[in-house]
C-alpha cells in the first residue's frame, strides 16, 4: 500500500489558514480592552468612567449640614417636597465653599410653578398673576413657609 502524502498545495492552504486565524487571535488579545466582558459584551471600565463625572447639584442633604433650621421650617409647610436648589439654583460651589453665595432668585421663579395653566393638576395652587397682585410675592408669602405671612 502506498503511504498517504499530503499534497503540497493543501499543506500550504492549511498553514495559511492557521496563520490567519492565529494572527487574528493574537490581534484580538491585544486589541480587546482589559475589562471588555467583565459584566457583559461591553467595556466594564465604562461604568467607572461614567461614574467619575463630578455632580453639579449638591443635593438637599448637603444643605442640611448647615441650614437644618431652614430645612426644618420647610418640612413643616406646603413647600416640604421642594429641593433647596429648585429655587436657589445650583449650589455646589456654595456647598464646597460657604463664602461663595448661591444665586438668589426673584418672584419670577414662583410664577414658574404657580401661574395658572389648564394643563396643571387641579390640586396644585395656581394664580392668574395679572389678576392676583402686581407687587412682590414675598410681600405676602414666606417662601420657606408659604402658608404663613410675614
Amino acid at each position: 500500500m502506498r503511504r498517504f502524502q499530503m499534497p503540497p498545495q493543501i499543506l500550504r492552504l492549511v498553514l495559511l489558514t492557521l496563520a490567519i486565524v492565529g494572527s487574528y487571535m493574537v490581534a484580538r488579545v491585544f486589541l480587546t480592552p482589559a475589562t471588555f466582558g467583565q459584566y457583559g459584551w461591553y467595556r466594564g471600565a465604562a461604568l467607572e468612567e461614567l461614574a467619575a463625572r463630578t455632580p453639579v447639584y449638591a443635593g438637599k442633604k448637603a444643605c442640611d449640614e448647615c441650614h437644618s433650621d431652614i430645612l426644618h421650617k420647610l418640612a413643616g409647610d406646603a413647600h416640604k417636597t421642594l429641593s433647596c436648589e429648585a429655587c436657589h439654583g445650583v449650589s455646589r460651589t456654595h456647598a464646597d465653599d460657604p463664602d461663595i453665595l448661591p444665586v438668589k432668585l426673584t418672584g419670577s421663579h414662583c410664577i414658574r410653578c404657580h401661574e395658572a395653566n389648564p394643563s396643571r393638576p387641579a390640586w396644585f395652587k395656581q394664580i392668574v398673576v395679572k389678576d392676583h397682585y402686581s407687587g412682590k410675592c414675598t410681600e405676602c408669602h414666606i417662601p420657606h413657609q408659604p402658608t404663613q405671612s410675614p
Partner: protein
Amino acid sequence: MKTQFNRRGALARLGGILAGVLALPVARTAKAAVQRVFVSSGAARGYDPSKHKWLMCIDVNKCIGCGLCAEACKKENGVPEGPYFRTWIERYIIQKPKPGSGQTRGETLVDSPDGGMHGFPESPVPRDQIEHSFFVPKLCNLCEHSPCVQVCPVGATFDAPDGAVLIDPKYCIGCGFCIQACPYGCRFLSPVTKTAEKCTLCYHRITRGLKPACAEICPTQARIFGDLLNPVPDDPIQKFYEQNRVQVLKPYLGTAPRVLYAGLDKEVR
C-alpha cells in the same frame, strides 16, 4: 495497568485539591487588587453595580410642567444647547369632541417647546374646549429588554448590572442605529462628540448615593427614584405601587421598562 492506591498517596492528593480550592479566592483577590492598582480612574469607590436595581416612578398627576427637571438634567450632564434632551416634558391637550361627531374625544395636541425646559406657554386651545390636559415627563425607560442595546454593532451601549442603560462614549462609533431603535425617542446624536447620548440616570450621582438631578429637583415629587434591591424604611417606591395603578409606555413592544407611570392616559405614546 494496575492503579496503586495507598493512604499516603490519597491524603497527599486530597491535600493538593484542598490547597488548590483555597488558593483560588486568594488568587482572584490578588488579581483584582493588581487590576485596581493599574486601572483606577478616580470614580466613586465601594459601588457594586450587581447590588442595585434602579427604577424611576413617575406620577403624572403630580407633574406641574415647571420644567425644572429638564433644565437640571441639561446643567447636570452638560447636555448640548439646542433641541437635545435626556429628559423632557410633553404637554398633552385632549380636546372636547365636536358636537355630533359621535366620538368620545377630540383631537390630541402634543407639544414640548424647548423640552419644557422653560415652562409652557398659554394653551393654544381655549380653556373651554379642553377635555383633559396634563404633562408627561419622559426619559430613558430603562428597558429590561432594550432594543437599543440589541442593535449596537460595537458593544458601546449596554444594560449595566444595576439596570441603567448606558453608552460607552469611547466605543460609540455614532452610527445612530440605537437612536432609530429606541421606541421612546430617548437618544440623540450629540453635535459635540458625534456619539449617541442618552439619560444615564445621572450615573455619577447614583453611584455616590445621590438622586438623579431630575428627581432631586422635582418640586412635587412627581419623579420617585428608587432601588429594587435595597428598600429603605417607609419606601416611597413601595408606597407608589400601593397607592397607584401603574403603567408603562408602549407595553405591547415587550421592552419591559423600569420607568413606571401612574395616571397615564390612553393618548400617551
